[in-house]
C-alpha cells in the first residue's frame, strides 16, 4: 500500500549535520520543512547518558551507533576486474545511523582546507607544470576560499569549535597554524589543553623548526552558547568521543548545536525510521516532485510531495540515491563520461607509535580532537614537482582514548596471545604515544561508485558498488611523510618506535578501521560534463534538487572533512535563501 502525505515546501533526506543546518536556515524563511531520517530518533538524554554510553564493547567494538549492514550496505572491489563483494560487517569506514548521523559519533576534528586545495588542478598546473597523471581526475572547486570563508566561520560558531587562530585577516597569530587560510576572526572558544603526548610532540616539532599548534575541534574548552541559545559545557576528557555520543554536552553535534532549537519551530517536522527509496521526477524530468520513502512503522511506501528536495544524507547515501533516481548521468570509467559516482575518494593516513617505558601517558584521558598539530607538510608547503606526488598531510599527536580492547599498542614482535602477550599489556599499556599523518587522497578515473549488478538491499534496490584502491601518487605521499617523521621520532628518543605507513603496492583492506572520510561521487564544479552539481550544490538537470555533504568534494582534502561539509552547507543555504527561493531556476 502506498499513501501520499501532505506537500511540504522542502524535504530533507537525512537528519545529520547538513540536514540540521539546511532545516534551520530554511525554517527561518517560514517554509514548511520535513526531514526524513531512516534511522531512529536519538538525543543526549536519554540515549547518550552516563555511564551507559561509555561502553567500549557495545559502541566501540560492536558499533552500536552505526548503520547495520543488514539494513543496507554497499559492495566493494579494488578494480574493475574484480567481482565486488558486500561490505558485510563494518570495518574500514563506519556510516552512522539515526538522528544526528555521523555528527553524533565523530571525533570532532574540525578544519578548513588549505588555500591550494580549492583550485588544486589549476594551482598544480600553474605552479609545477604538466605533472598531473592522465588518470588523475582532480579538479578545482567552483568557488573560492574567500567566498566560503564567512560560511566556515558560521559553521564554527554554530557548532562550537575550540582552537587557536594562526592567521586573522592575513596577520599571523603566534601559537596558531601560520599556514592556515586567513580567517576573519578567532575560533569561538580557546584551544583545549593537550595531554602529555601532544606536549612532547609539540616541543619536539618546535625544536626541529616546525610550527606546532593546538588541534582545532568541536570539543568545548569552556562554557559556550551559540546563536540559537544552544549550550555546551566544558569537556571532562572522558576519552569516549569517536563511536560514541557525548553525554556531557561537550562535543559539537547536530543535537547539541541545532536540533533542539529547530524542533521548537512550528514549521519544521522530522520523521524517523523513514528510508527514502528514491527522488521522484516530473514527467519532463526537469524537476523533482518529491520523494518516495519506506515507513518502517506502518510498513508502507509513502510519496512525499515537495517543492524542493535536498539530499542531506551521508556522502555515500547521497550518491546511491542519485544513481537510483536518475538524478544526473551515471559515471562510466571506460568512456570517462557521466558524473554521478565520479571522483569517489577516501583518506590516506599513517603514523608512528613511540614507546617510553618510564613515562605515564594516562591514555584514557583524551578527547577526539586532543593534542598538537603541525601543518609544515600540508599541501601548500610541498613542491609537488620535486617530491613526485600531489598531496599533503597534517600531523597530530593527541590521545583520543585508552579503551583497552581497541587501543592497546604493543611493541612489534610481541606475541599476539599467551604469557608474552599478557606480560606486555601489563608492561606497555599507558606507556606509548602516537604521531599521525592525516593525508589527502586524489581522485582517479578508476575509483568510482555505481550500482551493483548482483546484490540488493532489503528494499530490493540495487546496492551501490564501490571500486576503490590505493594509488601510487598517494602512497608516495604517505611514504614522504614517513621519511620526514622518522627524524622527529628519533629526536624524541623513545625506547621503541614503530611505524604504520602503507607501502607502494598496498591494497585496500576493508577490515581495519581507517576513516569515515568517504568523499566525492557527486562533485561540485563549473562544467556539467565533470560535475554532478553546480557551484551552489544544485543538480544540473533538476534545479529543485540540491545535494549537500562530502560527496561534493572533487578530491579529498588532507583534513577531516566536517568543517568543509559545514561550510559548503551554509554557502548553499545562503544562495538558496537569497537567489533560489525568490525565483526557482537553475542558478548557473
Amino acid at each position, binding site marked *: 500500500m502506498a499513501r501520499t502525505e501532505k506537500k511540504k515546501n522542502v524535504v530533507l533526506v537525512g537528519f545529520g549535520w547538513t540536514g540540521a543546518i539546511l532545516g534551520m536556515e530554511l525554517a527561518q524563511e517560514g517554509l514548511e520543512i520535513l526531514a526524513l531520517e531512516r534511522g531512529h530518533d536519538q538525543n543526549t538524554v536519554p540515549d547518550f547518558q552516563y555511564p551507559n554510553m561509555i561502553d567500549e564493547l557495545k559502541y566501540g567494538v560492536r558499533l552500536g551507533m552505526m548503520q547495520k549492514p543488514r539494513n543496507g550496505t554497499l559492495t566493494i572491489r579494488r578494480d574493475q576486474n574484480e567481482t565486488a563483494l558486500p561490505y558485510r560487517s563494518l570495518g574500514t569506514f563506519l556510516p552512522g545511523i539515526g538522528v544526528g548521523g555521523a555528527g553524533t559519533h565523530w571525533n570532532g576534528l574540525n578544519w578548513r582546507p588549505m588555500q591550494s586545495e580549492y583550485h588544486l588542478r589549476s594551482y598544480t598546473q600553474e605552479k609545477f607544470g604538466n605533472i598531473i597523471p592522465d588518470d588523475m581526475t582532480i579538479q578545482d572547486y567552483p568557488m573560492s576560499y574567500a567566498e566560503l570563508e564567512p560560511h566556515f566561520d558560521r559553521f564554527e560558531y554554530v557548532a562550537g569549535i575550540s582552537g587557536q587562530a594562526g592567521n586573522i585577516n592575513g596577520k599571523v597569530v603566534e601559537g596558531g597554524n601560520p599556514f592556515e587560510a586567513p580567517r576573519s576572526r578567532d575560533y569561538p572558544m580557546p584551544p583545549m589543553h593537550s595531554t602529555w603526548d601532544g606536549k612532547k610532540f609539540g616541543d619536539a616539532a618546535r625544536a626541529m623548526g616546525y610550527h606546532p599548534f593546538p588541534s582545532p575541534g568541536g570539543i568545548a574548552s569552556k562554557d559556550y552558547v551559540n546563536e540559537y541559545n544552544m549550550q555546551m559545557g566544558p569537556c571532562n576528557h572522558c576519552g569516549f568521543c569517536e563511536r560514541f555520543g557525548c553525554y556531557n554536552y561537550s562535543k559539537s553535534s547536530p543535537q547539541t548545536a541545532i536540533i533542539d532549537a529547530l524542533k521548537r519551530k512550528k514549521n519544521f517536522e522530522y520523521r524517523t525510521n523513514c528510508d527514502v527509496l528514491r527522488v521522484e521526477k516530473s514527467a519532463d524530468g526537469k524537476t523533482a516532485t518529491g520523494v518516495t520513502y519506506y515507513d518502517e512503522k506502518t510498513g508502507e511506501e509513502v510519496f512525499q510531495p515537495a517543492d524542493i528536495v535536498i539530499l542531506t544524507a551521508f556522502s555515500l547515501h547521497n550518491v546511491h540515491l542519485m544513481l537510483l533516481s536518475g538524478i544526473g548521468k551515471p559515471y562510466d570509467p571506460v568512456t570517462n563520461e557521466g558524473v554521478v559516482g565520479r571522483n569517489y575518494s577516501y583518506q590516506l593516513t599513517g603514523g608512528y607509535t613511540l614507546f617510553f617505558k618510564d613515562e*605515564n601517558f594516562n591514555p584514557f*584521558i583524551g578527547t577526539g580532537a586532543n593534542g598538537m598539530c603541525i601543518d609544515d607538510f600540508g599541501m601548500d608547503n610541498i613542491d609537488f614537482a620535486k617530491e613526485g606526488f600531489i598531496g599533503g598531510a597534517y600531523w597530530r599527536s593527541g590521545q583520543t582514548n585508552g579503551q583497552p580492547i581497541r587501543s592497546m599498542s604493543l611493541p612489534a614482535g610481541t606475541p599476539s596471545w599467551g604469557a608474552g602477550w599478557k606480560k606486555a*599489556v*601489563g608492561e606497555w599499556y*599507558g606507556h606509548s604515544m602516537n604521531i599521525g599523518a592525516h593525508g589527502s587522497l586524489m581522485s582517479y578515473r578508476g575509483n568510482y561508485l555505481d550500482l551493483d549488478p548482483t546484490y540488493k538491499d532489503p528494499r530490493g534496490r540495487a546496492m551501490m558498488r564501490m571500486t576503490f584502491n590505493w594509488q601510487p601518487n598517494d602512497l608516495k605521499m604517505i611514504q614522504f611523510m614517513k621519511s620526514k617523521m622518522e627524524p622527529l621520532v628519533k629526536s624524541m628518543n623513545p625506547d621503541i618506535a614503530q611505524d604504520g605507513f602503507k607501502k607502494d603496492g598496498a591494497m585496500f583492506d576493508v577490515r581495519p578501521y581507517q576513516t569515515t572520510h568517504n568523499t566525492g561521487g557527486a562533485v561540485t564544479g563549473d562544467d556539467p560534463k565533470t560535475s554532478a552539481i553546480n557551484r551552489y550544490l544544485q543538480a544540473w538537470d533538476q534545479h529543485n534538487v540540491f545535494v549537500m555533504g562530502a560527496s561534493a568534494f572533487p578530491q579529498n582534502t588532507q583534513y577531516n572533512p566536517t568543517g568543509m561539509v559545514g561550510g559548503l552547507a551554509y554557502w548553499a543555504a545562503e544562495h538558496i535563501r537569497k537567489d533560489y527561493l525568490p525565483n526557482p531556476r537553475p542558478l548557473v
Partner: protein
Amino acid sequence: MRDVPGLPSRRTFLKASAASAAIAGIAAVPAKAEQKPEPVALTEYKPDCLKPSEWAFVMAAVARLIPSEGEGPGAIETRVPVFIDMQLAGDYGRAADWYMQGPHDAAASPLRGWQTPLTPLEVYQQAIPVFDAWCKATHGKIFAELDGETQDKALTSLQKDEMKIKPELRDFFTILLANTKEGYFADPMYGGNHGMQAWTYIGFPGARGSYREWVLKHNVKYPLGPVSISGERA
C-alpha cells in the same frame, strides 16, 4: 596431573574456584562494599549456547590464550568463557547486524572482510570439531585433553592455518582470539573481566569518565582504580 575429558584442567578448576574467594576478600573491605553476589563457578556454569564439548574447548583454549601464570589475571579468573558464551548466544553470535545474504565467496582475499555464509556462532560450532579432529590426528587427543605445551603448539598451528581449514572457517582463530581479549577487557556486565581484574592490572579506570583536572598533570600516573558501568569499584 591428568585432565578430565570434557572439563578444564585441574589447575583451571582451582583458578576458577579461587576467583570467588579472591573477590569475596575484596568485598569484605568496607570501603569497597556493595559488590555483587559471587557468580556461579565456571565449572558449574550452564552455557547459554555452547554445547559441553564446545564449552570444554573454549575453557581450555582461553586458558592458553591468556594464561593464569605470571603477573596479571588470566582468562579463567576473569571468566572470559562466560563472556564468549553470552556473546555467541546474542546478536554478535547471530551476526544480527551483518549483511548475510548470498552469493558468498568465502575464498575471497581476506582483505575483503567477512565473506563466509556462517555466523560467528556457526564458525565456532563447525570449527571446534574440525580442530579437535586435527588435534587427535596430530597429537593423539582432542584439544581440551592435551597438556598445556601441546595446546600452545596446536593453537599456533591453528593461527598459522597449518591444517588448511576450509575458507568458511578461516576466521575462527581470529575471532576466538578477538573474543577472548574482548572478554578480558570489556565491562564486567558482559560476563568477563570479573571484578575488573584486567582493568586493575593494566591501570584502566573503566567508566570514571571525568579527568578534567588531570589533563595537565603530565607524566604523572593517574591514581584511582576502576569503576564499572554498574557502579562496582575495585
